[in-house]
């Protein structure tokens, strides 16, 4: 039965691994260049003791892969679901071949278990290898940016992508079993996968652990604080970055932990907030005129005595626990879907 599952998977498997190898070769060749650029820079900046002040040229390598790879990494599990998962059962039912497959000396349970197991495992291997290659290529750049825990980049690092691949595959198989036609199953898989990824990223992942909080002073004369004069609600402190961490939010709060009221802001900087609406100054020297900028800087200076930035974040040390948790969520969902598929097929056919 295992041999049969592999034989039936032959076409997709060959295509999948061929694409993987082709991409791998491309990444290897270009990635080595990136590594070399980084290594050269590291050697030079250490000699000149300028590592933290000089920008790393890997950031400007300008290889289109730098932008394409994150996209490929997002899309790959969905492709696995669509082209490997969806046809798995849908094709059997659509072509009527299930009447041959499920009347041999193999029970439906065993047939399904082996099919899902073998092909699911292959999907996870393909997904995992792809992610590993992407991660390797991007690692010099990631080391500089220190944003692997960010909302989107989290999805193509670590082990979570293995969970995505397994889930997409299981979703495809289930859609195929329920919808009984390959093309609608493909569509449903795409929609379901995107939906699930969004849902987990925005609603579930943030709750894996409670965030940590820290207060940071408002920056003066450094810009980044933005107001819209006349609209006192739009008072946003600059973004704060935590190295390799994940910032949930930054907000301006007073000593009691509350956001400043419109009333307070008006009282603090009457001259600034009573101006006619202007394009919001960035705090840097702008062509809008010196009076606007001076008023702005004076206001920020005054506010920063009582107002601070409150940062909600996950520290970089929690990256790996979060990765395992995310992978766990998707693997559990994959297993649940397999159970659903089995239950449904039993009810319908055997």
């Amino acid at each position, binding site marked *: 039965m295992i041999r049969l599952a592999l034989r039936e998977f032959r076409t997709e498997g060959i295509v999948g691994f061929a694409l993987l190898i082709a991409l791998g070769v491309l990444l290897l060749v270009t990635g080595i260049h990136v590594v070399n650029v980084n290594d050269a820079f590291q050697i030079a900046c250490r000699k000149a003791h300028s590592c933290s002040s000089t920008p790393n040229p890997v950031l400007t390598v300008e290889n289109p892969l730098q932008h394409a790879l994150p996209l490929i990494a997002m899309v790959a599990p969905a492709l696995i679901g669509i082209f490997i998962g969806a046809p798995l059962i849908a094709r059997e039912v659509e072509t009527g071949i299930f009447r041959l497959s499920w*009347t041999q*000396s193999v029970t439906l349970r065993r047939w399904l278990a082996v099919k899902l197991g073998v092909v699911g495992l292959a999907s996870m291997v393909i997904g995992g290898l792809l992610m590993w290659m992407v991660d390797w290529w991007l690692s010099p750049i990631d080391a500089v940016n220190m944003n692997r825990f960010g909302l989107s980049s989290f999805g193509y690092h670590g082990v979570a992508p293995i969970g995505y691949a397994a889930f997409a595959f299981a979703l495809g198989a289930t859609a195929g079993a329920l919808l009984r036609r390959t093309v609608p199953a493909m569509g449903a898989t795409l929609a379901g996968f995107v939906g699930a990824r969004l849902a987990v990223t925005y609603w579930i992942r943030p709750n894996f652990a409670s965030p940590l909080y820290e207060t940071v002073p408002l920056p003066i004369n450094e810009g980044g604080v933005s107001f819209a004069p006349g609209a006192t609600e739009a008072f946003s402190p600059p973004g704060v970055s935590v190295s390799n961490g994940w910032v949930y939010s930054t907000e301006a709060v007073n000593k009691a932990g509350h956001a400043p009221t419109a009333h307070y802001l008006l009282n603090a900087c009457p001259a600034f907030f009573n101006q006619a609406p202007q394009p919001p100054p960035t705090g840097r020297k702008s062509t809008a005129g010196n009076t606007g900028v001076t008023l702005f800087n004076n206001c920020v200076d005054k506010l920063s005595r009582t107002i601070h930035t409150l940062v909600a974040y996950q520290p970089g040390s929690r990256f790996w626990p979060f990765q395992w948790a995310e992978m766990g969520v998707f693997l559990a969902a994959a297993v649940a879907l397999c159970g659903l598929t089995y239950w449904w097929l039993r009810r319908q056919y055997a």
Partner: protein
Amino acid sequence: MTAVIEANGLGKRYGHKWALSECTLAIPDGKVVGLVGPNGAGKTTLLHLSVGLLQPSAGSISVLGGRPGTTATQLARVGFVAQDTPTRAGFSIADHLRFGRWMNPNFDAKLAEERIESLGLDLRQKAGKLSGGQRAQLALTLAMAKRPELLVLDEPVASLDPLARREFLQGVIAVVADSGTSVILSSHLVADLERVCDYLVVVVNSRVQVAGEIDELLASHHRLTGPRHERAALPRDQQLVNESHTDRQSTIVVRTNDPILDPAWTVEQLDLEDLVLAYMTGAAAQDRRPKLGVHS
């Protein structure tokens, strides 16, 4: 007598519609059973229930003493060829035989290869490129190489030309002659069944109308023609199958084991096609009728 297929009040429902209802059968083993009835009557439903591709909504069915489709052993004892003989278009004939070997521990690969060779088929040929008759032969080979005790064939020759049809039936006969395998095959062509089958089950409007040995059925059914009679005039041990009247004449088909003594009737024997037609028209005309028993 051991029953090869035994059904009790078997029924299958889709939503509100019953595809098969109140089916009670006890088909003895060692027979070639013909399952006949119009399209959509419930033949395929009955066959799918007997191989485990469907679950009953009501009643029960047991095949070779076991519940269909439940265990690997049960599945191994029954060979099935579905309507339109599905095969994997991308697989070659050799691939299909390998598939048979991998999925069936009892698979007789040598028998299968010999049969394919004697049919003049090329092992490397892709199944998608075969003609309808060749695909049917491939499907039959896969089913019989399992060495099953029962072969279930769903309209295997419906879309085949006469030569392919004959060759397929010859294949089935050869299996029966060699191993005494029980066979149940469905068709809406009675002529095919008449030569090959020795047991008949007629399904019309989702119900089993009659079932029994063909010799016995032919001996016990008669066509009576005579002057116009009312229905009530029939003796009680004669079961009415079908009736038609003109203003002067009545023609009825009855089932009885007793001689027909009323001199007003002209009695004729029926051939199998007439018998099946009588049940098909009779079922369309009548409402609920007493369940016809099973004769072994």
